[in-house]
């Protein structure tokens, strides 16, 4: 299938890490991936398979040993990291909120980027509040006293305030129970559609992936072994490696783990 320039693209990226006894260990091996605007892509696979490493390459928290990452066709090496990260924010597994109120946290991005201060009355931010299902009654509460699920929604919206084009999510639902995780997954889908965001969701929760994503990439030992529409990858995998992994992690019974 030929497409226009994808919003985010990883081209044959390789990452090694100094392992035990000083031996260099390949974490990613010539991995390639593409994500379009408005699309949710899940990167699934066993822990230690390089999923988080791949995610951290997209906003230059890590640099690849070789290969390149492109944002709208532009090599991100040429983009100043703070600017890049305001376009492609990352939401971590465990929500981290700065001390202060929910409002302080939601407006933190503008402060940290030294950009013009925004106001939550702004219609665009009102829409985001609604999309992220943040109750306006929370705004003046101590952010760290909210529930984990509420905190993760604050983190999500905080990342989206500004000129965001893509969103990186690193196991964002792993601290949540199943109903809450499902709700948040729906939010990801709506965000991608309504804000035309490219979302990369790293997860080991196959059930969740099937629920909210358009495509799935299965990462095993640093390589994408299977990639395609979610149902196809999960139910009709073409490679032996994928079949073996999926049989060990049946979609129906996978649990959200911490």
């Amino acid at each position, binding site marked *: 299938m030929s497409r226009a320039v994808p919003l985010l693209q990883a081209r044959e990226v390789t990452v090694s890490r100094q392992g035990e006894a000083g031996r260099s260990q390949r974490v990613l091996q010539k991995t390639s991936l593409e994500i379009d605007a408005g699309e949710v892509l899940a990167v699934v696979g066993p822990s230690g398979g390089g999923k988080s490493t791949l995610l951290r390459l997209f*906003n*230059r*928290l*890590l*640099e690849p040993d070789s290969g390149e990452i492109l944002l709208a066709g532009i090599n991100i090496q040429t983009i100043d*990291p*703070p*600017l*890049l*990260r*305001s*376009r492609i*924010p*990352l*939401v*971590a597994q*465990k929500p*981290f909120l*700065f001390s202060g109120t929910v409002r302080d946290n939601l407006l*933190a*991005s503008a402060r*940290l*980027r*030294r950009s013009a201060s925004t106001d939550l009355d702004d219609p665009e931010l009102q829409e985001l509040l609604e999309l992220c299902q943040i109750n306006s009654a929370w705004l003046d509460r101590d952010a760290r006293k909210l529930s984990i699920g509420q905190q993760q929604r604050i983190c999500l919206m*905080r*990342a989206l305030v*500004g000129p965001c084009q893509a969103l990186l999510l690193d196991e964002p639902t792993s601290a949540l129970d199943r109903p809450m995780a499902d709700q948040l997954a729906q939010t990801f889908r709506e965000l991608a559609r309504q804000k035309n965001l490219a979302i990369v969701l790293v997860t080991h929760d196959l059930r969740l992936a099937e629920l909210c994503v358009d495509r799935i990439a299965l990462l095993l030992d640093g390589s994408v072994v299977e990639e395609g529409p979610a149902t196809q990858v999960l139910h009709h995998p073409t490679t032996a490696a994928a079949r073996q992994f999926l049989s060990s992690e049946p979609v129906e019974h996978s649990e959200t783990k911490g």
Partner: protein
Amino acid sequence: MNTTIINLDLWDLVTVYSLLLMSIGLAHLLKAGQNKDLFWSGLRMFVQLLVVGYVLHLVFALKTALPVLLILTVMIGFAVQTIGSRVQVKMPHFYRIVGTAILFGCGGMTFFFCTLVIGLEPWYDPRYLIPLAGMVIGNSMTGASLAVERLAAEFKERREEIETALCLGSSVQLAAEPAVSSAFRAALIPSINAMAAMGLVFLPGMMTGQILSGTEPLIAVKYQIAIMCVITGSVSLTSFLILRLGYRSYFTSHQSLRED
């Protein structure tokens, strides 16, 4: 004012060393196991100070700048090494950063005091410059160690916070700001406490020394006030430089946190 100084002769020193023997005896009695430490420290003090006394005697007599500068350089070198042995976790480029900070922080403040305030003639007059620099460097060492140690602890504790800020598009400077200001606060606490307790809890060493050697108490007090301001200035400038140069070493060239 009577400026006759009561000299201590060899027998007086022997007499006070008997107090060290008493300490060794007490340590032995309580099985503290410090007999050897006390003995060797006492001996080291004797030899080191005697050597310093002779060196100062010589330098005072020479009346040239070079030996004074040499002594100051050795003092800075020892200060950096002492800080290095005190702190557990050293930042990358530790020696370069701390050396630069002490050189400009302590050196700058001492020079400011000696030339602009006291108006030393010649500027390197060792009788003033060496003891004053010694006090400034010695006191700044505590602040510098605290700054280095606290910065490392803050970066460890605040890793999540700093990375969250980076992921939202923050510059490294802004992301590190809470860690840097907390480390600066820690470095300055001893100076603040010392100034507040000055004269109430203890009579500071320099003032005591000046009074013992016959200086009018009010002059000694003025010197003490001045030196405390210089020390506080030096602690803050040295810590500021360590933190400003040091925080960057926790980040990579592409503005992310270094791996542990």
